[in-house]
């Protein structure tokens, strides 16, 4: 879940804690930390909005606590939203599902109807850390953490998921795809909290999928991730598609040329080649030890065609 630099910093933080602050983590900068667990969203919004220093929402905590432990952030206030009633449910709504902000990844993975309807979203959720991490981590947190490599964000964006955001000015609905603003940054304002994420109803003959490339098969950070969500007509022709790339730019990308390459086709070889070329052409990746720029560009194309085929095969089997 972290970059190597953070790990190294984390070790230093631990040494500092052990030598300066004793064994209860009181050393250094975090002495002023305040923890609140308000009973309502309005109270949570007010706490965040009135905070003078850095304030963070605490849901699963699998990013926030690591960032505190490794001294990447020194919040003045943590607002735990897990005591707020109604946020920990997956509710069927208008043929789709509303997933509360404190629902854990494992709770999603164990929800049979959700898994059957949005298997590509679940592909992404399953890749977030270990079983232990998924026991706490939330998709709202995965989104709000702002990592370009977040595994659940490309499939949520491809699915047309909409976040319900509660803030000082009231409630607004915003597409998940519009929330990421760059590494560690979102388009949420001060005091705003993602209350839930809505996955819409699906048309017949629809399928979605997400895959990522990582050096290891588990417990790793995406070097490239691709999500595809598509709908077929009864003859197997793609009538609509969304293709979203992760980890190849400061935010997720949804290149229009990718969808264009496969709409109107049955994913014949020429269409898949065009899709791969469009995906590769859209990448603006960094060059780092997990993957060179050139490698990420190539792999984006390879994954795009592979994931499109998987979504297509699912669409043919999901009535």
């Amino acid at each position, binding site marked *: *879940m*972290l970059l190597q630099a953070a*790990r190294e910093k*984390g070790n230093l933080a*631990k040494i500092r804690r052990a030598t300066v602050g004793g*064994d*209860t*983590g*009181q050393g250094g900068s*975090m*002495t*002023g*930390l*305040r*923890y609140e*667990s308000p009973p309502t969203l309005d109270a949570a919004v007010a706490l965040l909005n009135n905070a003078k220093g850095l304030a963070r929402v*605490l849901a*699963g*905590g*699998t990013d926030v*606590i*690591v960032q*505190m*432990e*490794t001294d990447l952030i020194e919040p003045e206030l*943590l607002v*735990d939203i*897990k005591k707020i009633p109604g946020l920990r449910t997956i509710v069927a709504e208008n043929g789709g599902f509303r997933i509360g902000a404190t629902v*854990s990844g*494992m709770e999603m993975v164990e929800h049979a109807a959700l898994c059957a309807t949005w298997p590509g979203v679940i592909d992404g959720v399953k890749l977030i*850390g*270990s*079983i*232990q*991490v998924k*026991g*706490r981590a939330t998709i709202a947190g995965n989104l709000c953490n702002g990592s370009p490599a977040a595994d659940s964000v490309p499939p949520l964006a491809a699915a047309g998921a909409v976040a319900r955001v509660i803030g000082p000015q009231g409630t607004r609905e915003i597409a998940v795809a519009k929330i990421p603003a760059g590494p560690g940054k979102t388009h949420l304002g001060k005091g705003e909290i993602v209350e839930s994420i809505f996955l819409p109803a699906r048309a017949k003959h629809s399928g979605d999928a997400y895959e990522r490339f990582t050096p290891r*098969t*588990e*417990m790793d950070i995406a070097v490239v991730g691709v999500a595809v969500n598509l709908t077929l007509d009864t003859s197997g022709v793609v009538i609509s598609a969304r293709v979203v790339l992760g980890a190849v730019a400061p935010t997720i990308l949804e290149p229009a040329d990718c969808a264009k390459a496969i709409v109107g086709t049955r994913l014949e070889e020429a269409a898949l080649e065009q899709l791969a070329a469009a995906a590769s052409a859209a990448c603006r990746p960094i060059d780092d030890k997990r993957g060179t720029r050139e490698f990420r560009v190539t792999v984006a194309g390879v994954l795009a065609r592979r994931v499109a085929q998987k979504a297509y095969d699912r669409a043919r089997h999901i009535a």
Partner: protein
Amino acid sequence: MSRKHHITLQVNGDEHEFLCEPQQTLLDVIRDELMLTGTKEGCATGDCGACSVMLDGRLVCSCLVLAVEAEGTSVETIEGMASGDRLHPLQRNFLELNGLQCGICTPGILIAARALLEKNPNPTETEARYWLAGNLCRCTGYDKVIRSVLAAAAEMRGA
């Protein structure tokens, strides 16, 4: 100074209460306040699984849970795994099949493996390996770990 929080929770069926600072993790409290040192700290960043515990029936890393978040919860640690002198079949199979070397990762692996077998009494080797991917062993003893888990599973199924 941060305000201290008064926390009440159950650990292995026993009621406990303590005061904690907001930045203290559940792991810190389990080890340093409740003196249950079977749960280990490996990385403190959720990567190694040595601090695995059950929190309200859910497998988690106790280093990724703040102690204040654990108010009113039920926690199960490795200390609650054996029944008196009678080891859990997982513990016995780890001993008999040398499923551990230095032992630091072992409590976390045992807790995680028990959670697996409660959900899936007959896991394939692949399922067991994926489930335990969040438990790192720097002695590289994975093969014997997996064999011990599968042997315990077979024993518990009465196979």
